[in-house]
């Protein structure tokens, strides 16, 4: 059976499998989680995982300092992580991508202006910028997403603009203008199809970055409210009891690590198979 190149890449398949697994866990969290993530059980605090001495089968990954089920909190935490990853990276792509196409296609003063805005924007340290934004916007899932979009759109803008510049110089873009295509049609029908592979790759990499940024923000308590479980929050909670129960710290870190690894693997695989400059070498 014939499959497109990206479906035959091991990187893509493994990355996709990891991402899908975590995505499904997030969607079906109420069905999968053994406990309510906020249900406290004060007589069973800081339990180790079930396979260690002192562990209980009821709490497979143990409990935290308030006796909440770590596994359930991890599963529910995936909801915040995945929501932020998907929505924020698409938002950043939309904002950065549109500006990149406008700048690269029209060039001249428009390009200069957008380029300078990106320069100024990128000279702020990203973590500080997102913290400042969160302080201004207030906590909550929607504001986390907004903050990440506002910080990371520049990444898309910069990389895509140079790609648009290359495509713009191809004769077929000029030819489309000569037969009477409008600018809008030229961009959507001639330029965009050539930049989409890069766009997809950047989005999948950005998803991994968004997961990390969300974890950082929730670690410092600037993300979702305390009653919504988030991986960064779990790390922050576990930090105080790291000597009594290191497992509480290790599980959310592993969750972040695996998720980001999955996104990066997917992005790298897509880049290798979709990027014409890399695939053309085979001929």
């Amino acid at each position, binding site marked *: 059976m014939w499959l497109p190149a990206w479906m035959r890449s091991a990187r893509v398949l493994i990355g996709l499998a990891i991402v899908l697994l975590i995505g499904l866990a997030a969607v079906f969290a109420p069905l999968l989680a053994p406990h309510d993530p906020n249900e406290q059980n004060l007589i069973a605090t800081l339990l180790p995982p079930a396979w260690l001495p002192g562990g209980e089968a009821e709490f497979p990954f143990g409990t935290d300092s308030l006796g909440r089920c770590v596994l359930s909190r991890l599963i529910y935490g995936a909801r915040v992580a995945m929501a932020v990853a998907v929505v924020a990276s698409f938002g950043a792509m939309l904002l950065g991508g549109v500006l990149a196409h406008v700048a690269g296609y029209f060039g001249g003063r428009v390009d200069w202006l957008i380029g300078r805005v990106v320069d100024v924007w990128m000279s702020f340290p990203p973590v500080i910028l997102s913290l400042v934004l969160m302080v201004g916007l207030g906590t909550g899932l929607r504001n986390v997403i907004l903050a990440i979009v506002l910080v990371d759109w520049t990444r898309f803008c910069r990389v895509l603009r140079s790609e648009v510049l290359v495509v713009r110089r*191809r*004769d*077929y873009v*000029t*030819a*489309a*203008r*000569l*037969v*009477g*295509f*409008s*600018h809008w*049609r030229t961009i959507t*029908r*001639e330029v965009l*199809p*050539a930049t989409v592979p890069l766009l997809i790759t950047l989005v999948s990499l950005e998803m991994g970055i968004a997961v990390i940024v969300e974890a950082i923000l929730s670690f410092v308590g600037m993300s979702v409210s305390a009653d919504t479980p988030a991986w960064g929050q779990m790390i922050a909670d576990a930090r105080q009891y790291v000597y009594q129960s290191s497992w509480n710290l290790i599980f959310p870190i592993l969750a972040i690590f695996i998720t980001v690894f999955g996104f990066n693997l997917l992005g790298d695989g897509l880049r290798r198979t979709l990027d*014409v400059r890399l695939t053309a070498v085979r001929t």
Partner: protein
Amino acid sequence: MSILIANELMVSAKLGGDLVPVLRDFSLTLEPGRVVGLVGESGAGKSMVGRTIAQMLPPGFAVTGGRLLFGGRDLVRMPPDKRRALLGREIAFIPQEPLSALNPVLTIGQQLDEHLRRLGLATPRERRARALDLLETVHLPRGASLLRQYPHQISGGMCQRVLIAIAFASRPRLVIADEPTTALDVTIQARIVRLIAEMQERDGTAVLFITHDLRLAGQICDQILVLYAGRPAEYGPARAVLTAPAHPYSRCLQLANPPMSGARRALASLPERMPGLAAYKDITGCAFAPRCPNAVPDCTRGAPPFVDVAPGHTAACIRTAATQAIAAPALAAAAETAAGAPVLEVSALCKNFLVGGMFSRSTFAAVRDVSFVLGANEFLGVVGESGSGKTTLARLLVGLEQPSGGTIKLTGQKVVHNLVAGQSAHDAQLIFQDPQSALNPRRRVGGIVTQSLEATGIASREERLARARSLLAEIGLPPETVTRFPSQLSGGQRQRVNIARALCATPKILIADEIVSGLDVSVQAQLLNLLIGLRKQRAFSMVFISHDLSVVRYLCDRVLVMFRGEVVEAGPTERLFAAPAHPYTRALLSAVPPDDPAGAWTPARFEPDGARL
């Protein structure tokens, strides 16, 4: 003793698991002081020969039979370090792209110095003296300052001279020149070829001259070997191969080349094209048989043997006697230029570009005071060397550039083409030089050719498909091409699609910018004949920009000669080619190798300020 002997050499490549011979039955003897031309179209395996001698074959390619001897030593079985010692010393190369063959971050002096050090010149003083000496032998003036310059600061012709100096520095016994003039202008080509001949005569070097230009090979080679699909088709003395070709392919190549002198004749256009590497394993019998006008059923039974037609002149054909009978088709009566109002009037057109950085701005006049009129159904040729403003003129005519001065009138109305403002000039369409870049690789052919319908947005899917089919039929492509992607087409087919897209807008004028320059002779002939046919069916005028004078002579009614942005001469084709008035036109015309290999090739020079090389 012979310098190079190839005896039934075979090179094979691994393609999809099979070992396919890509060079077969290649036999050649190169004597000292001789020039052998290796002629063929792209993909014939010309460069493979050079690569085999250097043992720089691409991965998956290997010599699988026969012998290759250099001065009696076996080049194929020689240990790599011994061979490396030969390369650059006894065997030297002159590459096709002079600019990419020199390292852009090193000065000419450093690169010469490096090579001379490798040749064993110990002291820097010695090497410098020798480098200056070498630059003098290749007629490069002001050697001392040239040594300090970088490749991008000098012209392509000068770069090629430097490379020739490097190649001949070690007084090699064999020089392999792989299309050394293809990337250069015609007037420079003449001088470079003359220089190679001069150096070769001085040292008694044997030269393997790889080229696609049969006329050029006829002028400078002692013997010519014509390659077709990896197998020699004909091998013999240059004059005999050109005047009395024994293989139908050589004959057809010759007939497909527009003549520079004598009566205009129609071009023989071979059907189809040469089989690609992937198709080699399916060839039974003569690889040329499917395209050969003389083919008989016997041709497909086994590879044709090499037949001696004269002493030292062999051809791989079973019907050599019939070759001379192949004739070009009769010249169709030229379409009349319709009388009446001109379609295009250009007067005093100028275009200046700003060059330089922030502090030292200056203007460069790419097009200066160009005026001409184009009648209905008239084909106007624009010739000139690179940098003469031809392409800028084309871009001005279709509105991709704004004129700095002067006017363009299209069908009597003064037009301010301005694509930036959203107005486009439907009546003037541009056909691009590079069909690869001009076709969106992600769209199907059917969508590409009907782009102008898509732009208006009123045609339905069915209408567009029907239009695409009729356009493809008009330009000679099968209807199933509609669903193909450009990457699935050959270069010639892509250029046809390019033409079809321009025609879909039913323009009054086509502007063709070097549309046949990247194509092989036989494909070029097909396209030229197509344009002549289209001109009869549809009434359109054309501005045909080309550096190839023979093509312009074949196709155009009138010619403009451009030099540094100015029109130096204009006139009817016949008159201009027969009696050029301007010295630059004379220089251009004399730089083209004559049709007759015995004819004198005496390129004239035109250097208004003495600085051009």
